[in-house]
């Protein structure tokens, strides 16, 4: 059986969970077995609807204390569930939650882990999973040789597919150990698309000259229902908050479309965004290295080009 960890927050199931459910279901089909979901905590969503993503059962440990993450507690529960259900493969998203739990589960079960998978495993000869390495500059095909296998899937790297099927929901009775980590405050940006989940990201760099000029970035992002991001110098100068910083030392993203405005494209920046499926670069310097990594580009003044682009997109979306 393929067991898929369902991540959630604020009573909602995360978009990355739909990706891993679809991935787990496709993997189960490949292996000739079934896929099930595992949800620790409580959500307001009707869990039977998760059958739409190809799983037959959702196992739930219905305990609201699990809505806060303690990696030690959650990995204990995932491991116990995996043993009880005889899971052969456990799938996580390689998001913030998955990064905290998947390695612990792998070590606990002495299961090989491929962290940051980008495709379904090749099962023709063993169990070989493709992942990004060298910060997006290459792929590695990694063979897992242990009996139990753990895979964490990069966000935005596997398409969500749905059917009309429904899943049954089974409560899993597991003893929940006491958490050692106490969450004292949570500070989330409300009403914005989280950067790592965004399908479109609009990003600004030093070329925008100052934080007062960010309206053109925000307007374009708004028209595209996109998340906003920025380069390192912008975050370091406090023009924009640090959680918007994408790049080697910031957040790594892989949206379908990345629009870089006034960003030269230093190698450290590219390391954070080079997994984007399509890159558009708008820069007045035709020699900006970013053009070499781009799919589409406009050499021009951002203050003229970007408002026009926003206008055209609004027209198209009307």
């Amino acid at each position, binding site marked *: 059986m393929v067991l898929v960890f369902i991540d959630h*927050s604020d009573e909602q199931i995360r978009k990355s969970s739909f990706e891993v459910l679809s991935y787990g279901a496709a993997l189960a089909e490949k292996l000739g077995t079934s896929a099930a979901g595992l949800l620790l905590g409580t959500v307001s969503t009707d869990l039977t609807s998760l059958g739409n993503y190809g799983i037959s059962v959702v196992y739930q440990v219905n305990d609201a204390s699990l809505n806060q993450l303690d*990696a*030690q507690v959650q*990995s204990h529960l995932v491991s116990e569930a995996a043993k009880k259900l005889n899971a052969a493969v456990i799938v996580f998203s390689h*998001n*913030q*939650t998955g*990064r*905290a739990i*998947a*390695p*612990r*589960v*792998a*070590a*606990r079960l*002495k299961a*090989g*882990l491929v*962290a940051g998978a980008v495709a379904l495993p090749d099962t023709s000869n063993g169990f070989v999973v493709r992942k990004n*390495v*060298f*910060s997006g*500059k*290459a*792929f*590695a*095909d*990694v063979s*897992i*040789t*242990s009996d139990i296998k753990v895979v964490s899937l990069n966000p935005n790297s596997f398409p969500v597919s749905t059917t009309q099927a429904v899943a049954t929901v089974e409560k899993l009775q597991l003893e929940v150990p006491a958490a050692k980590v*106490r*969450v*004292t*405050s*949570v500070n989330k*940006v409300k009403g914005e698309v989280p*950067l790592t989940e965004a399908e479109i990201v609009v990003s600004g760099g030093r070329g925008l000259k100052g934080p007062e000029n960010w309206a053109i970035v925000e307007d374009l992002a708004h028209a595209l229902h996109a998340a906003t991001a920025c380069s390192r110098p912008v975050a370091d100068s406090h023009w924009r908050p*640090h*959680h918007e910083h994408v790049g080697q*030392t910031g957040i790594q993203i892989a949206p379908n*479309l990345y629009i870089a405005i006034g960003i030269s494209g230093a*190698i*450290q920046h590219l*390391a954070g965004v080079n997994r984007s*499926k*399509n890159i*558009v670069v708008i820069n007045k310097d035709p020699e900006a290295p970013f*053009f070499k990594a*781009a*799919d*589409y*580009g*406009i050499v021009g003044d951002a203050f*003229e*080009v970007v408002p026009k*682009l926003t206008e*055209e997109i609004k027209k*198209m979306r009307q």
Partner: protein
Amino acid sequence: MKILVCISKTPDTTSKIAFKDNDSKFEETGVQWIINPYDEWYALVRAIELKEKDASVQLHLITVGLSDCDPIIRKALALGGEEAIRVNATSDDSYYIAAQIAEVAKQNNYDLVLTGKETIDYNASSVGGMLAELLDMPYVSLATQLEINGGIATITREIEGGEEVDEVQLPVVVSCQKGVAEQRIPNMRGIMAARTKPLKVIEPANIDTLTKVVTFELPPAKAGVKLVAADNVPELVRLLHEEAKVI
């Protein structure tokens, strides 16, 4: 308080990435090796700051690697720390690495174990969590701030779309990223002192590897940028809509 900082040797960010032996191995010729930036700039520097505040702190460094890691260990020691341990083995399996470190850590009762959030070569973000599990310690990942007071760690960590503040009693394993500390450059005194600091080389424990890299592959080269004239913005929108199908 005893602190262990785990460091890893990685190719410099600007290194050309190429492979050899039928794409089964990383081509190391001409590569400049560095301490994995997350390990150095954030985990190690924060540990040094904690030691500067409290001279009773003991700070050890550990790496799993062959003798070609010694230059980066000396560089780390030049920044700070009393001694380094090198487990004389190499592997691309996170479990193998974590289990080797756990064998050493178990004998030394560390209160705080720090790693970088991931290495910039394998990008697995796994050794810290595995190590925490093997040591039966709590784990806080992706920290952006770390304070220790009276045996309690207060840690700000990245979550999707924001951050949260956690409190946890030591011992704990923490993976560190930007915000935890600022990059430092070793000074001449540090470099001189590092030459005589102990670097213990120990032979590896008998640990299974659970994964193995079969092949590497470079991504297909980009077809080249399609440039659109600055006065023809509708054409860009058309391309994104009809050709790339992303809007």
